[in-house]
């Protein structure tokens, strides 16, 4: 298991390096385009261009440019945006990351718990009304677009019922953990639930179909023949083997959300997260910010996948030797 973790960690580092090289090449070595002009932004003056060229070493060979870029990003952390003149890139990203992480991790906890409970309950209630009712709720969850659901939630909690039932709901926006866990959670609880609804529906449906399949497996019949109670058969045998699929799915979804796919939720709830930052910088064509966002997002996606790989190996002994 430890060797497996070590190999995976090494692979993760290599992937990160490869991503940084690819991103660098896409931004700086695309033939027929002047990276300096793109970094300097639209209508840049000649002085700005010269400044950019010097700062990024565009007169030096490619590997020097790569090294210089990484130095700006990770060591000196002084990459500056030329579109928003003088604004530092790294602080913007380090401010956005906790917002997105808080949003996505909280939502992930909710959707995993909810999805697993719904999936197990639906499997246990096969042949009764429980199963179709839960599955209909799942479909409703999947079908509600986040931006619509979020706006409805805001309409109710911030406006229509804000003076009665939802007086406890704070104004939109993010409160850092340093303000206290309670304040932080209070600001995020509605975004969490809004984001979790979609995924809980998907996960419940996937888990149910996996578990119903597992309940027809020989090993479940064997477990019953051993005199194991139905609850234990359901949890320790059927759920345990079905979790493997759920965890793979989780790795993909979680990584994508951390990497900016939570944009719609961030916009609706006024959270200045990575998705929002990337979106704004794309609007302005703010190349250094885009670059920073992509690399930081890649870092978290790779870390999330590393953790999921470990969970996967813990769940399924068959992959440990691969």
């Amino acid at each position: 298991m430890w060797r497996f973790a070590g190999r995976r960690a090494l692979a993760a580092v290599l992937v990160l390096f490869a991503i940084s090289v690819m991103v660098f090449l896409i931004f700086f070595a695309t033939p027929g385009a002047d990276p300096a002009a793109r970094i300097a932004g639209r209508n840049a003056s000649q002085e700005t261009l010269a400044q950019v060229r010097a700062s990024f070493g565009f007169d030096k060979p490619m590997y020097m440019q790569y090294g210089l870029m990484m130095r700006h990003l990770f060591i000196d952390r002084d990459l500056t945006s030329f579109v928003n003149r003088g604004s530092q890139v790294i602080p913007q990203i380090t401010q956005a990351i906790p917002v997105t992480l808080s949003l996505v991790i909280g939502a992930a906890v909710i959707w995993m718990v909810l999805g697993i409970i719904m999936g197990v309950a639906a499997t246990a209630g096969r042949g009764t009304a429980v199963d179709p009712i839960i599955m209909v709720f799942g479909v409703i969850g999947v079908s509600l677009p986040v931006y619509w659901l979020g706006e409805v939630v805001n309409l109710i909690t911030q406006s229509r019922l804000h003076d009665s039932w939802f007086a406890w709901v704070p104004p939109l926006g993010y409160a850092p953990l340093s303000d206290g866990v309670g304040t932080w959670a209070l600001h995020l609880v509605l975004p969490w639930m809004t984001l979790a609804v979609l995924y809980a529906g998907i996960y419940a449906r996937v888990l149910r179909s996996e578990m119903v399949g597992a309940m027809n497996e020989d090993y479940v019949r064997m477990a019953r023949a051993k005199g194991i109670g139905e609850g234990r058969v359901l949890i320790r045998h059927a759920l345990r083997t079905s979790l493997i699929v759920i965890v793979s799915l989780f790795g993909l979804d979680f990584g994508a959300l951390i990497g900016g796919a939570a944009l719609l939720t961030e916009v609706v709830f006024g959270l200045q997260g990575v998705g929002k930052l990337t979106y704004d910088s794309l609007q302005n064509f703010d190349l250094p910010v885009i670059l920073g966002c992509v690399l930081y997002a890649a870092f978290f996606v790779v870390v999330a996948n590393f953790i999921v790989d470990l969970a996967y190996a813990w769940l399924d002994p068959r992959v440990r030797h691969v």
Partner: protein
Amino acid sequence: MSEPLLEVRNLRVSFRTRTGTVTAVDGISFTVDPGEVVGLVGESGSGKSVSMLTVLRLIDNPNCVIEGEVLFKGNDLLTMSDADLRSIRGREIAMIFQDPMTALTPVYTAGWHISEQIRAHEKVSKKAANDRAIQLLTSVGIPNAESRVNSYPHEFSGGMRQRVVIAMALSCNPSLLIADEPTTALDVTIQAQILELLRDLQSEFGASIVLITHDMGVVSQMANRVMVMYGGRLVEAGSRLDVMREPAHPYTWGLMGSIPPTDGTRAVRLAAIPGAPISPSDSDRDRCLFAPRCTFATDSCRPQPGLIEHRPGHSDACIIPFSERAQRRTEALAPMRART
């Protein structure tokens, strides 16, 4: 004679389907005595597995209708509460399934599987259960049991996995072991090893065994008593010697005729029973179900002939007078011999 361990009375299992009722088991009755090995023989779809799964109520299809009685040590398994049934499953009656590749939950070790069963029925510590698992694995012939106890199912070969399943089945000293084609998924040499293991364990632990198989060879190696099923009914039952040497029912003749002879010249072609097995959804059941495929069928094969004991301990369901059987049997087996 002592009280039978298991007594099945007029067991009938049918499934409601969109196209009508399908009868898988059609009123079978038999007993299993303590310490006995009973072979239940029949081709695919004859209802042999379904009837034994029903004994432990392991069919969870909501469209399944079960009638009759299954008495185990005098208690009816079909009407008893789930909790009582659970204390019998695995402790009193254990089961071995056909495919060892899928019978173990892939994410747990061999030891975990065995301990789970022990701890489901007895209050013992994890350590003690694990120690017993090691002993059991040793007794079913798994080398290095101390380390293999921590191996996962995918780390065992098919034969070794079936040994793990057998160790698990024996972990609570059951008085009845139901083996549902335990060797079908294994190759021939491993098959022989597993049968030998079952035979040794049977003499050591003294459990009764119901051996479900479609292989007459397996039956002849293992069973004290043989029951032959066709179309969900018992067509012949008797001691191994009686059934193997003097099979009474034309269907059994067909089964025996399809075994390659080991003496004399080599058969050019093996005899096969003409026609196809009767479909469980066939609604015309008030007759001998084998009649459409039987060379000796007459109009008197209707209504259904009952299982009649022609001599002590050997019964069959055929209208041919018992005095004529020997001659008819020779006729039935003759064509094959003639072609040799």
